[in-house]
């Protein structure tokens, strides 16, 4: 990031194949525009997102991590989204302990038909992360 450039947060997004990834595809198909700050990684289920992935992304310098899964009751794999929700709740507590603002990690239910919601979520998250400023871990690495 050059010194004159405005800070643009980088978001790593773990999107479940059946709901949120398809919702993100729908946003594209519908030509709904959203900030290019997000880097989607397709996972089969939000329940397969290891908290280690989120930690790794944040320690590597990502400014935020989005985990997108199916709505409660709608998980393609029955209950993976509930497992993800529980794991992320625990992770949030740990992040704060370690001095990483847990507001950098978002877990959202976005269905395959909610392209507009996916786009809005990315916009909102970009704005929220801009307000939070760069991930301090990034500076640590650069130093």
């Amino acid at each position, binding site marked *: 990031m050059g010194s004159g450039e405005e800070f643009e947060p980088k978001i790593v997004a773990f999107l479940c194949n059946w709901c949120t990834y398809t919702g*993100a*595809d729908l946003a594209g198909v519908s*030509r709904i525009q959203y900030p*290019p700050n997000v*880097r989607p990684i397709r*996972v089969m289920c939000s329940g*397969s997102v290891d908290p280690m992935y989120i930690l790794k992304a944040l320690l590597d310098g990502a400014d935020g991590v989005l985990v997108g899964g199916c709505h409660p009751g709608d998980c393609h794999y029955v209950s993976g989204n509930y*497992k993800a929700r529980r794991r992320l709740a625990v992770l949030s507590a740990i992040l704060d302990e370690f001095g990483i603002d847990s507001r950098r990690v978002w877990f959202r239910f976005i269905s*395959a038909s909610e392209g507009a919601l996916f786009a809005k979520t990315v916009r909102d998250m970009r704005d929220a992360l801009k307000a939070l400023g760069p991930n301090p871990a990034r500076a640590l690495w650069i130093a």
Partner: protein
Amino acid sequence: MRTGVFVCWCGLNIGGVVDVPRVVQEISGYPGVARAVDYRYMCSDPGQQLIKDTIREERLDSVVIAACSPGMHEATFQTVAESGGVNPYRCEIANIREQCSWPHQNEPGKATRKAVELIRAAVEKVRGDEALSALSIPVTRRALVIGAGIAGMQAALDIAEAGHEVVLVERLPHIGGHMAQLSETFPTLDCSQCILTPKTSEVGRHPRIRLVTNSEVESVSGYVGNFTVRIRRRATYVNWDLCTGCGLCTEKCPSKTPSAFERGLAKEPAVTIAFPQAVPHKPVIRAEACRHLTSGKCGVCEKACPVGAIDFEQQDLLLEEKVGAIVVATGYDLHPKAKVGEYGYGVYPDVIDGLEFERLNSASGPTQGEIRRPSDGKVPKEVVFIQCVGSRDQENGYPYCSKICCMYTAKHARLYKHKVPDGQPYVFYMDIRAGGKGYEEFVQEATDEGVLYLRGRVARVFQDGDRLVVFGVDTLSGKKVEIHADMVVLATAIVPASGAKELARTLKLATDRYGFFSEAHPKLRPVESLTRGIYIAGCAQAPKDIPDTVTQAGSAAAKVLALFSAERLSHSPTVAAVDEELCSGCGVCVEACAYDARTLDVRRRVAVVNDVLCEGCGTCAVACPNGATRQKNMARSQVLSMIDAVVG
């Protein structure tokens, strides 16, 4: 590792935003990339040939295709990779269209950056991909069809005619769905029962259709080719094996309550056969209306029955069926009365909905087909039809078009005019949508026959003496309109059938925001759900008319038959696997699995995977405290290096 990267322009779809030559240049030097090339349309025959040629020339062992979403062409490119000599599971897609060029059209520089990083991540993933081959699973060549309206019956008949058994489950005691309630059908005005009853009879007597009425699907487990379905058959309190359908019980029953089939316009006995042509032609006792079942008194039907078929002790029955494919055809309901207060629906007896009008017009209905209004039985001389009630209404209803209302309103107005030649029908409409074979002509004939069309919305309907005052506006003349009518018919919106949401959960199917079942692709996979082996047909998917419903049902049946054409199916090999050296046999993975695919081998004290049951969700791999379980081709090490590739 020798990976080839193939970047697609998709004409201007990608190439108009993403700087493709630059992407190729940047990715060329990335570790493991033996060659990066671009092409205008990678999915075209020359594009596919380019991939195969490059695999040979560069002796590639893996490929990354940077193009559209994997939902579109992953299978295409896996096949290309395989025919070029690369294992199909070492082919990865970088989605630089749906998730890059299309949503970032105004930021080409950043979109190009993003494309490079997405491709890098795919290269990292493919680096760790194992060469796999598809698993083979058996197929139970029997189908379950849920809902026995015209959609479900058509699908069941098509599958059964092709030689396979069908379990057809219907919630009501009889089959036929809403079509059984209709009087005539557009655009031919032929009688609905006359075209329906040949189908209901055929379904009823078909040797390969197992009809299970008065029943609902309670749970579904398993996967494509191998579903286990539990069905609850609610007690009918009549032993259908003994019952001859003579109808004596229904004649003698003293308890009369409003009939759901007649939409409340007539009463029926507590023990009832909904309509004369009902299949199966057997009565059920409606427990809530039966004096014996509610208070223990009565029992007249029991005495009347000459064969002793009445059985007040009958219990619900739980059935278990094994099927290989499921067709969901649960149909629709109409926008509920409570929600159209401004038109007095549910308050004034002479404000009715379209299905109620069908019953008034039906020869077997409460008025034997004479148009008589509900309040006093008078023949209405002025009737106002209001279209788009609840549909195309952002504020009080649903934004979608209910599709069939323009046509059935034209039909209603014409049928009314045929039966009451000196009567005047008025139709308030927003637009007339009459796309369909013979449809526009049908509406034209309505105006020729004297139906008065007024373009505009109705603001209010209220009762004035024994008449209804309709306040509206004619937007073509710009004038306010006030009509004193004897009856008002509302074309209320089609909404998903009650219980559809719960069924969607039972089947783990996605629905759209209104609750209609979602198809796998809005244009190209209109009858497949996102779950392999489950198909959708009719109004369960979206509002549609009878011809479209029959077409879709036939299409769903064709998909089922294609599935049944082979004895075995291929199953994805990207399932969980266990490193037994690391496994402590703690069993956490067994708990985490939603499919019973993980079990403990007690003797060896290690966890094992049943490959065929495993759906490859990866949840058990995260749960494993020792890192002993991995999801094939989505291993922890792969994801970690993908993160490096996009953050780095």
